[in-house]
């Protein structure tokens, strides 16, 4: 199966995503300074030689922090989405496959979790556990898996009655074979789309938590934290909030477009050999 991302939006999204991954990987090489480096003499300076995006509080180099911030955004979002998708798919698939009490219990649990505003719960969890990126990943996955669980369950419920599953049963296939050879490969499409579409949300959520001081620990370069810092100097040094904010907006836009393109590409009507 080849992905076809030929639309303009898809290409743009792919370019942004690719750029972000590259930047995250190469941050130490691309950055003009170390993230810890402070230049107190030029604190809150607008762009100037040596500091292409200017400096922030305590004279940190903004370009360096924006580049390193890509790491945090990407890693947290990727892990949060992957964990959510994994847990959700396994639990949802199980619920759909086993039915009965297991199904009932798991689905009521998702109901309860979905009844809470996800962000509020994430704020609560990180507030209790303390600021750390691991806690952010945990907090986002804690509610994030429910969407995948419902999707996977629905997929399995419709797929398990398909004739080809009955055919496999008639041949004597066990549950594991049916699940891994027949149900999951056919359920994967919507789940991949859901995961891709969830990435920008997770990036924003991490930024929001960091903005509130509940995400990245102090000193960690994170876009949300930089924007938070910048809000205090909006009138004197607007660039401090502007550049990380732009990076955030561009990234979220790019991933949204990528998600749409992946959805279109995985549409069965576009599926080719």
């Amino acid at each position, binding site marked *: 199966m080849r992905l076809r991302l030929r639309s303009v939006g898809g290409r743009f999204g792919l370019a942004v995503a690719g750029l972000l991954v590259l930047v995250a990987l190469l941050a130490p090489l691309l950055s003009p300074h170390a993230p810890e480096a402070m230049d107190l003499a030029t604190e809150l300076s607008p762009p100037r030689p040596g500091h292409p995006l200017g400096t922030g509080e305590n004279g940190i180099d903004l370009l360096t922090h924006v580049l390193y911030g890509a790491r945090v955004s990407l890693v947290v979002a990727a892990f949060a989405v992957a964990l959510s998708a994994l847990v959700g798919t396994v639990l949802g698939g199980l619920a759909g496959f086993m039915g009965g009490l297991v199904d009932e219990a798991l689905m009521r649990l998702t109901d309860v979790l979905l009844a809470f505003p996800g962000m509020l719960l994430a704020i609560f969890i990180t507030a209790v556990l303390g600021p750390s990126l691991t806690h952010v990943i945990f907090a986002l996955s804690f509610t994030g898996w429910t969407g995948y669980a419902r999707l996977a369950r629905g997929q399995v419920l419709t797929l398990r009655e398909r*004739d*080809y599953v009955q055919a*496999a049963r008639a*041949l*004597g*296939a066990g549950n594991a074979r049916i699940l891994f*050879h027949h149900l999951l490969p056919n359920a994967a499409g919507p789940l991949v789309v859901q995961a891709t579409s969830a990435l920008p949300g997770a990036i924003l959520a991490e930024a929001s938590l960091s903005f509130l001081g509940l995400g990245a620990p102090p000193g960690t370069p994170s876009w949300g934290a930089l924007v938070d810092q910048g809000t205090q100097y909006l009138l004197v040094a607007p660039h401090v909030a502007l550049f990380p904010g732009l990076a955030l907006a561009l990234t979220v836009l790019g991933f949204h477009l990528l998600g749409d393109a992946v959805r279109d590409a995985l549409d069965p009507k576009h599926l080719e050999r």
Partner: protein
Amino acid sequence: MTEPLLRVRDVKTHFPVRGGLLGRVRGTVKAVDGVGFDVRRGETLGLVGESGCGKSTLGRTLLRLVEPTAGSIRFEGRELTGLSQRELRPLRRRMQLVFQDPYASLNPRMTVRDILGEPFAIHGLERGREREAKVGELLDLMGLPRDALGRYPHEFSGGQRQRIGIARAIALRPDLVVADEPISALDVSIQAQIVNLLVDLQRDLGLTYIFIAHDLKIVEYVSTRVAVMYLGRIVELADAADLYRKPRHPYTQALLSAVPVPDPERKRSRIILQGDVPSPLAPPPGCHFHPRCPYAMERCRRETPPLYELGNGHTAACFLVEDEARKVTQGGQGVLAQSPP
């Protein structure tokens, strides 16, 4: 008389219908409601009836893809009901299913190689090159090109896909094949090819078929014996020639009168049935057919007619043939299989 390949007695498959806030059982769909017959080795038993009469459910119940609520299914004398899925597995390779819809019956994400290799994989037979060779033989047998191996189901036509489905069913050389409307989803031009393929395979591999269909002409062509189902019960069962020449049950008569005859000169008296098939949720009491039967008597509303033996293996569940059955068996023993009320 030798042991039949499949011996079915009083099989019932009921589905609970749940409704309301608490999911209480509101009723029961009696999809199969007390069915009994034998399938002899090498024969084709045709199973006909209107949509919703339970013939597909019966076919799947016999293979234990749907759990029977009650009754006995013996395969070569071995009771299938009550076996666990694990105990059932070695028997599964000996009885297979061909599906109606060739678009739904093949996993769209598997290549033909994987689809046809799966029977061998499940039973741990033939690996690697040997399996590839076996799968290749199957393709030859089905008249499919060898280069089909690496392709996906959607690259084939309906008829070709049905051939792939049949190949999967016969891959492990089963004894019994339940063909559940194997041609009704196909173009008319393809139907004859698939029917002939099934007939050839039966001859060459010694298969036994249960052939489920609603096309009476094709059932007559392929079947040794034919069973007619109405609302979860068998109402008549006889040798194909016998049944088509001399149908005894009013329902069978009505069904057969609806078959088009390719002769414009011939006068036909059509029996037009009134009303629809009643809901299997609330089947009428007594004989299920009585609300639509032109000969219905008072008794039909109260009692369920058993299958009467009319000689030559011809049985019909209708009070109209009771006297005749008594003569055949001399002394009122004319009941072959008691249908429960």
